C-alpha cells in the first residue's frame, strides 16, 4: 500500500488557488498604478518620502515616493506617484505647490490638522497635453482655476498674525482666504492677495472697507476698556473682515481692485478723516501720563490725537516746557463745519484766522486726566471763562494754541493756597491762649466742685424738708385744714347773721335804738338756720 497514487490529489487546489490570488493581486496593483511624475522645488521642507500626500480638492490623489537633491544641488526633486484616476489632472500647465498648514486654517478643524504634515496641492491646468516633469511653485497661486470666485489686492502696513490661508470674513462668516502675500519693492507695506469665493465675491463692493480682525482687540485708553473679537478661529489664526459702510458705493468691485487694510473695525468704518490740521501746544508743567496717540477732544468730541511730545528749553527762566504736537481733523466735527465762517487764503491761513477769533473768546488747550486710575492724560480744547487774554500769532507756523493748566493742576493750586493760609494762622498763640483758658476753666470747675455744689446740696436738702413740712401741714388728716374748715363755717354763720341783722335794720332801722319789734319775724326770704 505504499505505491504512490497516480491520481492527482485534491489538495493541489490549494496552491493553485494561492497562485491565482497572488497573481490577481499583482495584476491589480500593476494596473491601478498611476503615472509617476517629478516636481522640482526649491526646498524639501515639509516633504517626506512615502508620506506626504498630494491633494486635489482635499482628496488624496497621490503620494511623494522619494525626495532627492538635484544633480547640481540647486533644487530638490520630489518623485510623486499619482493614482490612476488622477492622470487626467496632469496637463502641461498644471501647477503644484506645497501647502504648509497652520493652526485652524479657516477654522479650528481638529488636532490632526494641527500636527499632520504639509501636503502638495494641485491646480489642474487647462491646456491639453501631458507632462512628466514639473516645477513647483513656491507660493500658492492667486487664481485657482476650478474654484469660482474673485481675487482682490489688499495693502497692509504690517502682517500681524496673517498668513496664507487666513480666513476672510463678512459679518462673521468666512467667505474667502488669503492666497498669498509679498512685501512691496520699497518694503513699506505688504501686498496681500485674497480670494473671495463665489457667490460672496459680489459682496465686495467698490466702497468696501477691510480691517484686520485677528485675535482679541483689547484697548485700555482714556475712554475705557474695550474688548472685541471676530471668532475663535481668528483668535488663533488671524483673519481679515470686510463690510460696506451704510451709504457706501454698493456696486460689486472688479477683480484685483485694491483696498487698504485698517487696524480694526472702528478705524475701517469711520468716515474718512479729511485733511489734518497740525497745531502745537506749549505746557509749562510736566505732562506725565500723556502719550503719543492720546485723544484730543473739543466740546466732548474726539477730533484728533497727539502726534509728538518734546521738551523745549526756556533759557531765561531755566525751565523745560513741554511742546506737544497735535493733529486735528476738522471734518470730524461733522455738519457744523458748513456753518463756520470762511476766510481767505489757504487752509493754514484760514485755520489761523479762525483760531485767532476763538482764542480771543477764551479757547485754550488743557491736559486733563482721562483716567485717574492710570493717570493717563488727554488734551481738551475748550473755552475757559475769565481766561487772561493772550496774544495769538497768526503767522507762526506751526500754529501755536495757548494753554492753561488742567483742572487737576488748578485743584493742586487751590490746595496749595489753602495750605498757605492755614500756615499763616497764628496757631501758636491760639494754642497758648487756649491753654490758659483751659487752665482757668479748670480752676473754675474746681471751685464749683468744692464750694458751690455742697452749698447747693444743703439748700436742696432744706427745701426738701420744707416741702415735707408743707406736705405734712396740708395732709388730709392734719389739724390745720380741719381748723380752717371750722373757722370758715363760723365765718359763714356769722355772715348769715350779719345779713339778718342788716336786713332787720333795713326794715326797722329804729330797732337799733328800740330793740327788736315783736312782729319782726324772720321773713321767708332769708334762709336761716335756727339761731341760738
Amino acid at each position, binding site marked *: 500500500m505504499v505505491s504512490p497514487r497516480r491520481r492527482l490529489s485534491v489538495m493541489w487546489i490549494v496552491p493553485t488557488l*494561492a497562485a491565482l490570488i497572488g497573481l490577481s*493581486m499583482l495584476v491589480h496593483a500593476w494596473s491601478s498604478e498611476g503615472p509617476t511624475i517629478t516636481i522640482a522645488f526649491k526646498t524639501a521642507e515639509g516633504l517626506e518620502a512615502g508620506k506626504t500626500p498630494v491633494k486635489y480638492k482635499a482628496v488624496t490623489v497621490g503620494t511623494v515616493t522619494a525626495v532627492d537633491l538635484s544633480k547640481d544641488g540647486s533644487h530638490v526633486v520630489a518623485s510623486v506617484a499619482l493614482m490612476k484616476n488622477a492622470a487626467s489632472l496632469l496637463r502641461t500647465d498644471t501647477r503644484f505647490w506645497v501647502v504648509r498648514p497652520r493652526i485652524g486654517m479657516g477654522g479650528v478643524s481638529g*488636532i490632526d490638522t494641527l500636527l499632520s504634515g504639509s501636503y502638495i496641492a494641485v491646480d489642474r491646468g487647462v491646456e491639453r497635453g501631458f507632462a512628466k516633469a514639473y516645477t513647483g511653485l513656491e507660493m500658492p497661486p492667486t487664481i485657482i482655476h476650478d474654484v469660482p470666485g474673485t481675487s482682490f489686492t489688499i495693502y497692509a502696513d504690517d502682517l500681524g498674525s496673517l498668513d496664507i490661508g487666513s480666513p476672510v470674513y463678512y459679518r462673521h462668516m468666512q467667505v474667502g482666504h488669503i492666497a498669498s502675500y509679498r512685501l512691496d519693492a520699497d518694503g513699506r507695506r505688504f501686498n496681500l492677495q485674497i480670494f473671495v469665493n463665489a457667490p460672496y465675491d459680489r459682496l465686495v463692493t467698490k466702497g468696501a472697507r477691510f480691517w484686520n480682525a485677528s485675535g482679541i482687540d483689547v484697548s485700555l485708553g482714556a475712554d475705557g476698556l474695550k474688548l472685541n473679537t471676530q471668532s475663535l478661529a481668528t483668535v488663533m489664526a488671524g483673519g481679515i473682515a470686510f463690510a460696506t459702510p451704510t451709504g457706501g458705493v454698493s456696486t460689486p468691485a472688479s477683480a484685483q481692485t485694491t483696498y487698504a487694510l485698517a487696524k480694526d473695525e472702528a478705524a475701517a468704518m469711520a468716515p474718512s478723516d479729511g485733511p489734518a490740521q497740525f497745531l502745537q501746544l506749549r505746557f509749562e508743567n510736566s505732562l506725565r501720563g500723556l502719550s503719543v496717540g492720546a485723544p484730543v477732544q473739543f466740546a466732548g468730541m474726539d477730533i484728533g490725537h497727539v502726534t509728538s511730545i518734546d521738551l523745549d528749553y526756556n533759557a531765561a527762566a531755566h525751565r523745560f516746557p513741554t511742546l506737544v504736537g497735535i493733529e486735528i481733523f476738522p471734518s470730524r466735527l461733522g455738519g457744523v463745519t458748513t456753518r463756520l465762517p470762511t476766510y481767505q487764503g489757504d487752509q493754514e491761513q484760514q485755520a489761523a484766522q479762525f483760531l485767532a477769533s476763538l482764542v480771543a473768546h477764551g479757547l485754550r488747550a488743557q491736559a486733563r486726566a482721562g483716567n485717574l486710575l492710570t493717570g493717563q492724560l488727554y488734551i481738551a480744547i475748550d473755552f475757559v471763562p475769565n481766561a487772561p487774554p493772550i496774544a495769538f500769532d497768526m503767522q507762526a507756523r506751526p500754529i501755536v494754541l495757548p494753554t492753561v493748566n488742567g483742572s487737576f493742576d488748578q485743584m493742586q493750586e487751590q490746595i496749595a493756597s489753602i495750605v498757605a493760609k492755614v500756615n499763616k494762622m497764628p496757631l501758636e498763640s491760639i494754642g497758648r491762649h487756649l491753654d490758659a483758658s483751659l487752665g482757668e476753666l479748670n480752676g473754675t470747675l474746681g471751685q464749683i466742685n468744692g464750694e458751690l455744689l455742697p452749698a447747693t446740696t444743703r439748700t436742696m436738702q432744706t427745701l426738701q424738708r420744707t416741702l415735707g413740712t408743707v406736705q405734712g401741714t396740708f395732709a388730709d388728716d392734719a389739724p390745720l385744714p380741719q381748723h380752717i374748715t371750722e373757722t370758715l363755717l363760723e365765718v359763714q354763720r356769722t355772715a348769715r347773721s350779719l345779713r339778718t341783722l342788716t336786713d332787720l335794720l333795713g326794715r326797722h332801722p329804729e330797732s337799733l335804738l328800740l330793740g327788736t319789734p315783736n312782729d319782726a319775724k324772720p321773713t321767708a326770704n332769708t334762709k336761716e338756720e335756727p339761731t341760738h
Partner: protein
Amino acid sequence: MTGLPRAKTLGLVGCHACRLVCAPPAAHDDSRCPRCGTPLHQRQPHSLARAWALLLAGVIFYVPANLLPVMHTNMLGSGSDSTILEGVIEFWQSGSYGIALVIFIASVAVPCSKFLILGLLLLTAQRRSGWARHERTRLYRLVELVGYWSMLDVVVVGVVAGLVKFQALADIEPRLGILFFGAVVILTMLAAMQFDPRLIWDGETHERNS
C-alpha cells in the same frame, strides 16, 4: 532493533484512530477497522502530495505577507503603513531590541526555516534517501512544536490594533498583509500535519534488504 519485522511484511496495519492492530483481509484500499470503523491506511494517503501542495501555497502566500503592509499606524494625524520588516526595523531603531528580535524570529526566521525544513523532509522522503534519519526526525518534531509560534506576530498585530484606539492621538489598524501571514502559518502547520513521519524511515528496509 534491526532484527524486528515490519508491519508491512507481516501484513498488519495499525488503526490510527483506536490503535487496534488489524490484519486486513486483502490488499484493499477501503478496509475498515473492525473495532471503530475508521478506514485503515498504512501510511497517510497522498501524504507527500498534500504536504507539497500546502507548502507551496504557503510559500506563495509568504510573498504578499511580506510585501503588503500588515499595520497602519496613525499617530497624531500622520498615518503610515508598515510591513513586517519595516516594523522590525522601526522597533530596532527606536530601542526596543527585544520586541524587534522577537518579531523577527517569529515572523521571518521561523516561517523561512519551516519552509526549508519541510522542503527538505519532503524531498528526502520522496527520494527515499537514508541520510541523517535521526536528525530528520528531530527536525520534524521541531517543526511541529515551533510551527504555531509564528502566530505570535498575528496576535501582536491584533492586540495592538485593538488596544491603540485613541481617536486622533494614536490609532492602529491591521492591514491585508497580516491576513496572508496568518494563512502562511496555517498552511505550513497543515503541511507539517499532512507529512507522515514514518516515511522518513521507509527506505530503511530497502537498504537493509539490498
